[in-house]
């Protein structure tokens, strides 16, 4: 009996104490909290350091997505690069889990600290590539998949990727 009374009083005391500490809640939207760059909000498609689309339409983000809200179709550009002919995220389904970013082998798809995406019309939550593709490199500044990959594209011949030897001369018998 006595013990529970003390407990009650201590609780009251703690509550009272909080009246004098600084408030954690902020006056959103006038005041915005600081969100770390790795916060998981609105998804973007980024560009490589040379300014070209990073996404190669490999479909790994789509298959990693637990709610299946990414759909795209691959195409091949004239310069030989794979790219998404369309790239669609249905944000009304997205749970901002970041699995797509983790799966992406080219650092193309990235989550950003922007979470303010409310809409009155659910249909407006469907983002196409034109809404997703940004002009910068996002969080990863240096990576350019095509400099590493063995695929020949315009401006990068066979043997010119990272760590590659010039193409072998199949007609030569020399060791």
């Amino acid at each position, binding site marked *: 009996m006595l013990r529970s009374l003390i407990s009650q009083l201590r609780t009251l005391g703690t509550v009272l104490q909080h009246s004098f500490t600084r408030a954690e809640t902020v006056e959103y939207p006038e005041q915005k909290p600081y969100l770390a760059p790795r916060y998981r909000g609105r998804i973007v498609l980024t560009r490589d350091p040379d300014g070209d689309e990073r996404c190669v339409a490999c479909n790994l983000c789509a298959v990693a997505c637990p709610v299946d809200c990414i759909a795209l179709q691959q195409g091949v550009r004239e310069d030989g690069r794979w790219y998404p002919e369309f790239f669609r995220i249905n944000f009304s389904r997205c749970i901002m889990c970041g699995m797509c970013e983790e799966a992406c082998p080219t650092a193309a798809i990235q989550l950003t600290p922007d979470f303010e995406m409310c809409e009155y019309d659910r249909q407006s939550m469907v983002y196409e590539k034109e809404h997703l593709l940004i002009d910068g490199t996002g969080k990863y500044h240096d990576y350019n998949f095509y400099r590493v990959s*063995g695929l020949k594209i315009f401006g990068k011949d066979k043997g010119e990727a990272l760590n590659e030897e010039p193409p*072998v001369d199949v007609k030569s018998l020399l060791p």
Partner: protein
Amino acid sequence: MPVIKVDGKDYEVAEGGNLLESCLGLGLDLPYFCWHPAMGSIGACRQCAVVQYQNEEDTRGRIVMACMTPVTDGAIFDLSGERASGFRQTVVESLMVDHPHDCPVCAEGGECHLQDMTVMTGHRDRHYRGTKKTYRNQYLGPLIHHEMNRCITCYRCTRFYRDYAGGTDLAALAAHDHVYFGRHREGTLESPFAGNLVEVCPTGVFTDKSLVHDYTRKWDLQSAPSVCTSCGVGCNTLPGERYGRLKRIHNRYNPAVNGYFLCDRGRFGGTHVNAESRIDFPAQRDSEGRFQALTDEACARALRDRLQGKRLAGIGSPRAGAEANLLLQRLVGAENYASGMADDEHALMQRALAHLVNSTAHNPSLREIESADAVLLLGEDLTHTAARTALALRQAVRNEAHRLAEELRLAPWQDAAIRNLAQDRRSPLHVVCAGSTDLDDIAAGHYRLVAADQARLASDIAAIIRGEARSDGAAARIAADLLAAERPLVLSGPGAGSAALLDGAAAIAEALVAAGKAAMLSFTAAECNSMGQALLCRDSHIALAALASTDAEVLIILENDLLRRLPMASVEALRARIPTWIGIDCLENDTLARCDLVLPAAAFTETEATYINQEGRAQRAFPTHPPAEARRPAWRWLLDLARAAGDRTLSGIGHFDDIGVTLAGEDPLLQGIASAAPDHSFRSRGLKIPRQPHRYSGRTAMRADVSVHEPRQTDDADSALAFSMEGSATTDRPGALLSYVWSPGWNSNQSLHKFQSEIGGALRGEGSGLRLLDSLAVAAATPAPLPEAFSRREQEWLLQARHHLFGSDELSRLGSGIEALTGRAAIYLHPEDASRLGLEAGDGAVIAGAALEVRLDPSQVPGSAGFSTGYPETLALRSGEWVNIDVASDWQRQPELIGSDRGAAS
């Protein structure tokens, strides 16, 4: 059966196999690359290493290659121990040293055997810090994409291409660690089976070119068990669809038919379903003769207006399923129903059917054809009319090698050893054809004769075998070879257009049976359901030519371009005679253009149908995806037509399976068709069978551009399959319902062994179609008169059809990549005949109004002229007709390109 010990456990395994096969058969995961269930072992890749111990006392053991190690009673193996698995891991690591960083942009990714094996061995971190070797790719034609950097030198490609399929233009080139798998120079791969490289190569070196340019990963493809509709062999296929487009066709294993391989017509020809000329809406002609699209109600009204109380006639189709044809036959009445084959072809198919049913010789499956130890091929350029059968013959001639191997007690999977042993010794194959064929390279003898002489030769051979005649010419040589064999096979078909030839083939097989041989007799069929149409019309039928003299008021044409079956004048006469034409088809053609009402049919990837192949095997194809727009399966349109016409019996049919239930009655044929596959009520573990793999992505985004509210999955009330990723995808589901192959850790098609009861054997779920001819009775054919021997005429040439794998078939010629390979329709002349006519190769010649390119061919019988059959330009030409050949006046020669240069720019 021997008992072996693997990782301390005893297993009973099949006699005569190798350890790799046995382990896979037991469900143990053992990585491999170079071994292939249809091609045996060569021990090249070193990936399947295990440790073998001499006896229980042996603690050191030695590393052996499982694929090269026979299983013997009491043998002791260590599969998962550190030594064996460590060795396998280093093998993969060394293969990966030069491997490009390509998976995201590699069309093999997600179904890559190399990825699977890398994960299976546990190799993860790259230790090698050196540079990677690179190669330049080659242009290999419009069908196959080449990316040589990804090669792991397992030699599967050349073993398939050269050893198994008899190709010559793909080889292992260059030296030491520079080995290069390609052609001596860029150009289109010549083998009609090159497409199998896509599946045989365990990496992304060879991929499907049209898929690479409109790519979808395997896990995103919706697929359903289907049957190839490009010829009469009836290979089993797995078409894959995404976003309403057919993306690719893969092989579907059927142990009795195609096994592991398809031909390129079947693999690449199916994409005609994506063609621009697909019809999407029903339409009828307005007063000015233009087609106007109809709404559903307007269409129903139009059908009622045109059909009620009218006398109907119908033309079926050998390229439509059995059910649609059956419905049409019942709707118009058998006496007003034409099979849809040209009248001469119809007669030939009836004859072939009668022989197959009544002959004492066995009517073999494709698998059984591979077991023949002597083959006589009569009048068919098989590689172009039934390509997969030609591949089977290439295996049949190796039976001599297997016999020699057996003498030395070499196991049949010892591939390299057996090839070394046999060298060029083959079981005899004799090819009798109007020109050279693509099987001549393995033939013991080839005889170039026009159809009439082929028939005469066949009759001579039969007489010699019966002992009624004697000769020392070709007939005697062939007869001797057939008589020396135990399982001789006689193979012919309607390709040469000769009834007497079919009789001759049957007579030879009959005589061989009488001589005590286990003889086999087989006929090819031109289209996927030609045999089905022969069966459906076995009792009654009206000839196409006779339709014009009926009093029908409405003609219903089911998936058939009449201009391919009848001369233009007869089509026009028929059109003038019957006031209303209703056409059901999937692609625009000249017959639809003459119709009053056009109904858009679902293509073969959108409809359920049973096709009956040349052997009389009923096989069910299921829709891969629901038809788009207002397209509907032909059988559904026919039910609508029946309702509009007021047909009581047919109006009662609601579902696909009801067609059989309602109409089969006592007819064993229809009962067989109805039971070709499990019906719609079949459930596996209480669930439907999914068409989409469990990793199918994008479901909540695919259609979100149209509406963010996802529609429910289309119901499939007609089959046990679901347009969904939910359901039961067990490895023992019936073979007829095998919608995709996948097993944990086995993402590539190599996972197939999980579905087989033994390697290369039956599927665990059974079901490879239903053979119908064994239980049917058909009246014997009256013998056709033996034609006069051929003698050339002064100013006229005898036409002989030449079939082209790419081009002679109506729909597959529109497949993506294939258009580039069909080339111009040509006339083939003996060089001397050509010079008499003043023609050179590449010139133009006019035959019966058609301008064709002249090709010179010394194998053409002088006095005869071969022509590319089935091309739009040659539809008026008929085999066996005598024609004049004139020089085309304003002919544009094609620029000097050799075939391999075609499209080299792309």
